[in-house]
């Protein structure tokens, strides 16, 4: 059962690394496990491509066109991040910021986190989805607090409390969902929480209850998506955790949380029949985009900066899902992809940049192209990509989103444009002096693994000028599935 393999490999990895995580080959092991997972996922994807969507294990797991590409994305970015984290963590260890024991924790938690995300993505059961999200939170809490410094503890604590509370709301939402569902589906066979069944009968579910449920689910999972004003944990966690963790948080966890929200949205919209959920998403999205953009303006810490940029982009994606319809959903899915690729690559370079300069304060980071051209150009191109500069793919999705917004809700366009403009000025005026200019810092002891960066950026570039047919079909199918 390929799904089980895909789920089991990271768990196995977590176990192995919990045992051997302190050895010198732990990083390689980590990468190897991630690679194995990637391979398994590729098989899964191929199967889906061949036979269409899968239901498995008493319908507890399922793969449709919506989550399969997220699974693929997650596996891929997870693998590249593990590649990146190898030299990065070595350097951290050499500089005495981490002990081997911590590295063991890091590696096993990393795998556990991946497992949790796969579970969240693959499960058909809204309850299991909740459990998986909670598990992901817990594992990342440990990762964020890895350095055990005051700042990292504070960040982890805030992260834990805010997301814990949020998740609790989500649980209540799930309970309400179940409550509404069992009237239709009954308690027998425990089908009342299976998304596929819920989706089948969503028309009959009691609208009032689902309305309430959606509010709780939205607030709950939305906290993890980092929608303003529920976002406060996000910049801290991104800034204080180890960079690979920031990369996967930004690149994957937010996506997964949003995935959960969208699953719920599909059900609720089907039941209510009104655009209420869509409008809620649009509201959150717009608010996050604008606030995120203005937050960017005053940042000093490089990882914090890009954390806020994630808020902004999650806002844009949420907004697009809120608009709904084939084009907007297509654009949102595309934006999910390019954002996680770009943002993770940015975090890779940002991590090495702050290592070379021995600080995360952007005023301290100067003249990267002089020290290491790959880091410098990686950061520059990545930032330009994330800012929606053509020919990078982010522009493609933003173009679609903007045009659709003009079409469906013209009044939102100025806000979006202001957000984009301000974000551009804010990020670029910070990145340029870091990349260009003079510096006398010595290069890194271990040569940074920046191949992932350029692979990611190359993919993003390709998506800007050419979207492969299969991928496009995929997005289309998913967009149809989401509907709205």
């Amino acid at each position: 059962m390929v799904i089980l393999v895909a789920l089991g490999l990271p768990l196995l990895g977590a176990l192995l690394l919990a045992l051997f995580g302190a050895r010198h080959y732990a990083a390689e092991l980590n990468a190897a496990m991630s690679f194995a997972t990637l391979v398994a996922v590729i098989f899964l994807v191929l199967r889906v491509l061949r036979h269409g969507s899968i239901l498995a294990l008493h319908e507890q797991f399922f793969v449709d066109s919506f989550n399969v590409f997220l699974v693929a994305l997650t596996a891929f970015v997870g693998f590249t991040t593990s590649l990146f984290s190898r030299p990065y963590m070595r350097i951290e260890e050499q500089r005495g910021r981490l002990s081997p024991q911590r590295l063991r924790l890091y590696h096993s938690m990393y795998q556990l986190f991946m497992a949790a995300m796969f579970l969240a993505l693959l499960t058909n059961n809204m309850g299991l989805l909740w459990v998986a999200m909670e598990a992901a939170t817990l594992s990342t809490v440990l990762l964020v607090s890895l350095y055990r410094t005051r700042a990292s503890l504070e960040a982890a604590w805030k992260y834990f409390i805010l997301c814990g509370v949020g998740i609790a709301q989500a649980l209540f939402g799930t309970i309400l969902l179940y409550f509404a569902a069992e009237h239709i589906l009954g308690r027998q066979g425990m089908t009342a929480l299976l998304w596929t069944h819920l989706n089948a009968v969503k028309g009959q579910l009691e609208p009032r209850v689902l309305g309430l449920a959606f509010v709780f689910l939205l607030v709950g999972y939305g906290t993890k998506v980092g929608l303003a004003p529920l976002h406060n944990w996000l910049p801290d966690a991104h800034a204080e955790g180890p960079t690979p963790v920031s990369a996967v948080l930004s690149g994957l966890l937010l996506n997964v949380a949003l995935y959960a929200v969208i699953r719920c949205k599909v059900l609720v919209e089907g039941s209510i029949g009104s655009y209420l959920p869509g409008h809620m998403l649009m509201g959150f999205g717009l608010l996050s985009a604008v606030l995120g953009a203005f937050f960017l303006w005053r940042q000093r810490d490089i990882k914090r900066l890009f954390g806020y940029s994630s808020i902004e982009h999650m806002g844009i994606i949420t907004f697009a899902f809120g608009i709904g319809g084939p084009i907007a959903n297509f654009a949102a899915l595309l934006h999910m992809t390019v954002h996680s690729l770009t943002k993770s690559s940015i975090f890779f370079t940002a991590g090495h940049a702050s290592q070379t300069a021995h600080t995360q304060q952007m005023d301290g980071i100067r003249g990267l192209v002089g020290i290491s051209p790959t880091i410098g150009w990686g950061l520059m191109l990545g930032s330009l990509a994330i800012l929606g500069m053509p020919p990078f793919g982010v522009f493609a999705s933003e173009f679609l989103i903007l045009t659709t917004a003009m079409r469906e809700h013209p009044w939102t366009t100025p806000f979006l444009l202001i957000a984009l403009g301000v974000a551009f000025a804010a990020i670029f005026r910070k990145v340029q002096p870091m990349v260009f200019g003079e510096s006398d810092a010595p290069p890194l002891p271990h040569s940074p693994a920046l191949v992932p960066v350029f692979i990611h950026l190359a993919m993003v570039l390709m998506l800007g000028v050419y979207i492969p047919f299969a991928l496009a079909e995929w997005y289309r199918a998913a967009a149809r599935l989401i509907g709205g």
Partner: protein
Amino acid sequence: MHPSHVIAELLKLLAASLLLISFAMLSRRRTQRLITLFAWQGSVLFISTLLVAYSAGLTELYYSAALTLLLKVIALPWILHRLIQRLGAQWDSETLVNIPTTMLVGLGLVIFAFGLAQPISRMATTITRNTIGIALAVIFLAFLMMITRRKAITQVIGFLAMENGLFFAATSATYGMPMVIELGIALDLLVGFFILGIFFFQIREQFDSLDLSNMEALKED
């Protein structure tokens, strides 16, 4: 009088006491007391779950009840107790907002919760129909408590209280979630709690107090 009615009445009573306990928690200052109240809340939850299990004749709810007993009546309060012993955190914890105001807000929240729950309880078929409003109220009150308290521990207790509210909602409104979920949730709760335990010590050694006012360094300045 038919037993089911009796059970229903009993359940209402328990629900009411649950709400009462939440209010009490809102008003208490001493951490020690909070823990005791939390244990009480747990036991009420346990009894209500038992009753529902009996009246609905659902075996899995018995497991759920047992789980509640283990976790929320025995394990967590005990660990919490040990924790504050070890951390010496049992002193008074002054609130950010003074108690009476908090109570008033709480009252408003309860009304809001009931109003919110009405349509749901109207369509509920279980004998525990209108308890969901109370569950909601408990959740809100716990939330309020988390907002108004200053100490890490009290916040955690608030968090746990919220979980209790959730469990109560689950059992009373829907006869409990499927067992898998119940277990998953319980597991998460336990793990989360242990992580918290670890945290307390680390926070303590870093900040040499559990006062949250020390943890306001990360901000936009």
